[in-house]
């Protein structure tokens, strides 16, 4: 068990910078998820922590020791790969015990550790099989078992669930969380799936173009994104972004969306945006769940407007509705009983207490 620290870590391939100076402190026992689109440098960062890639610049330390030049085998880490990387010629038990056998652990201890891990992962009756005889989910468990028996300082997961089908992925996600609750090993987990990141992580690190966009708990990222990238990446369906302007009317600060639609801002929001220039091009960021049908009694900050629905998607417990606002497609979530129909108008309401205002040029949340 140990903390992991990254200081100004850079990775250059010839003239391309894949990772551009990352600072990250991962506490002992913490489950940190690196998330981002493909090519954002998250896997490279993980592989640098593992020692599979050299570091072009900066320092990585595990448990307080700088490991820049320490080979992977001496870093006391375990890694689960995307395609599991099980040794095809070894049985499950041999796969799991390989690391221990190389370190010449006593046979009895190897046996008990493998049995323990196999029981924890529910693969005790598979230990004599070869990887080819296992399903994807079972192979995934074996790969995790191989990591667990080593009892390393840090677990590294490189998109471990992306080869599984959707149903199994949800199941294994829960499984991984359970394992972490039991063994409490510091874990760094890489994924491109924001749902995986949200559900698993103590803290999520959102990466984009080789840099960290934001670090925070899943709820912090969801409710207080720092940039447009984070706001758009976290949450599904994604946050809506509508061009808008601030204006003064009737002595209050208003948010103007179109010639016809302008909402007075709730007092808390108005105070926050007071210093923003009135002519600056801005974007309203608002999540679909904050665009709903009108409620019977008015609440402060929830402003009604008329929308012409283009497409509706009934999901069962809710209906997603799509319409255009200021020439921008917008998604809202309404109750299945709201009477939303393709091509028909509906009276909607926008919850401005949960809005975000973004600077269109810098992409930062104001």
């Amino acid at each position, binding site marked *: 068990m140990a903390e992991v620290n990254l200081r100004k870590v850079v990775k250059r391939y010839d003239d391309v910078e894949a990772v551009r100076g990352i600072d990250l402190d991962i506490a002992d026992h913490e489950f940190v998820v690196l998330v981002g689109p493909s090519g954002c440098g998250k896997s490279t960062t993980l592989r640098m922590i*593992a*020692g*599979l890639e050299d570091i072009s610049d900066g320092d990585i330390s595990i448990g307080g020791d700088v490991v820049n030049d320490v*080979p*992977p*085998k001496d870093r006391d*880490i*375990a*890694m689960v*790969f995307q*395609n599991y*990387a*099980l*040794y*095809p*010629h*070894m049985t499950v038990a041999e796969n799991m015990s*390989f*690391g221990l056998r*190389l*370190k010449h652990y006593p046979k009895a201890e190897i046996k008990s550790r493998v049995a323990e891990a196999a029981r924890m992962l529910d693969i005790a009756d598979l230990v004599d099989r*070869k990887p*080819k005889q296992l399903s994807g989910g079972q192979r995934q468990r074996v790969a995790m078992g*191989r990591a667990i028996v*080593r009892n390393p300082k840090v677990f590294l997961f490189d998109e471990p669930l992306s080869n599984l089908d959707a149903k199994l992925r949800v199941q294994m996600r829960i499984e991984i969380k359970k394992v972490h609750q039991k063994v409490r090993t510091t874990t760094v987990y890489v994924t491109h799936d924001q749902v995986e990141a949200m559900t698993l992580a103590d803290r999520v690190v959102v990466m984009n173009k080789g840099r960290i966009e934001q670090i925070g708990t899943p709820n912090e990222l969801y409710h207080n994104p720092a940039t447009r990238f984070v706001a758009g990446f976290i949450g599904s369906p994604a946050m809506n972004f509508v061009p808008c302007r601030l204006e003064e009317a009737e002595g209050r600060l208003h948010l103007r969306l179109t010639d016809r639609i302008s909402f007075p801002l709730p007092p808390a929001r108005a105070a926050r945006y007071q210093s923003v220039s009135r002519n600056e091009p801005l974007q309203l960021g608002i999540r679909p769940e904050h665009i709903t049908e009108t409620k019977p009694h008015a609440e402060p900050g929830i402003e009604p407007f008329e929308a012409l629905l283009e497409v509706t998607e009934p999901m069962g417990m809710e209906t997603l509705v799509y319409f255009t606002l200021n020439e921008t497609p917008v998604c809202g979530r309404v109750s299945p009983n709201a009477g939303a129909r393709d091509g028909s108008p509906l009276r909607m309401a926008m919850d401005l207490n949960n809005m975000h205002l973004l600077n269109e040029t810098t992409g930062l949340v104001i």
Partner: protein
Amino acid sequence: MVDAAIGEDSVVRPRRAAGRKGLRHALKRKSTVAFLLTLPLILLITLLVVYPAIYSVHLATLNKSMQRFVGFGNFEFLSKRDTFWLVVKQSCIFAITAVVFKALIGFIVAHFVHNIPAKGQRKWRGMLLVPWVIPPAMSTLAWLWLFDPSYSAFNYTLAFFGIGPIPWTGDAGWARFSVILVNIWYGAPFFMIMYLASLKSVPDQLYEAAAIDGANWWQRIWYVTLPMMRNIIAITTLFSLIVTFANFDIVRILTAGGPLDKTHIFATWAFRVGIEGSDIPLGASVSLFMVPILAVAAIFILRDVNKRGNES
């Protein structure tokens, strides 16, 4: 719709008009078409492999003048001759030593080539294949000159270090060494190219997993590379064992079996007694002796390959 049409055609109609319909149906069956497509190859193999094989078995049962059937007479005669057992021993030494070194050198060179950056790799692969591409009859002539006792490049160079002259093809030990050396030089590139292909098919992540599990480079080769290459190693070794056992040209050109039959192997000795000694049936018997030896090796190696094939 399609199913119904086929059903009507194949189930109802054949009852009537069996004659011509039967032929047409036979032609439509997949197995018949497959047989017809492989027929040219079957004929070719029959002509070039099966017929000569049966003919040589027939020859081996005749007397020297090929007039009289002698049964196992030739084999009995052979088993009583010391030269024959010398040839058996030499063939085994020749084939096994050569194959072991070819495999070893091929494996090592394949690793080096595998680690060359992709850009330069083609060039090296091409150059390293040259010995295998040149017809051995020609390249062995070059070796023959290199091995010449009095004027060769080898002995000339060695003389600078005060060594030699070495009787490369004149002394029994050195002659055996020389024919094996040339055979290794000729055959190692084949192993190299097979192993290289097999090395490239081992996923990088297995090495990464092994590196994280704590394996050093030797343990990575022992626990990852070799097990992953086992089938290729087995098949390549078997193939090379057969070809090396039946080698003719290198020994024939380099030493012609000499000195004093000390480098004869099955093929060269069969040629000596059969063609040069004008006893074709005896020569055929010598070459037939290779069959049981190679068959046993083939059974063992292929059984192992099959077993692992079924496992995975």
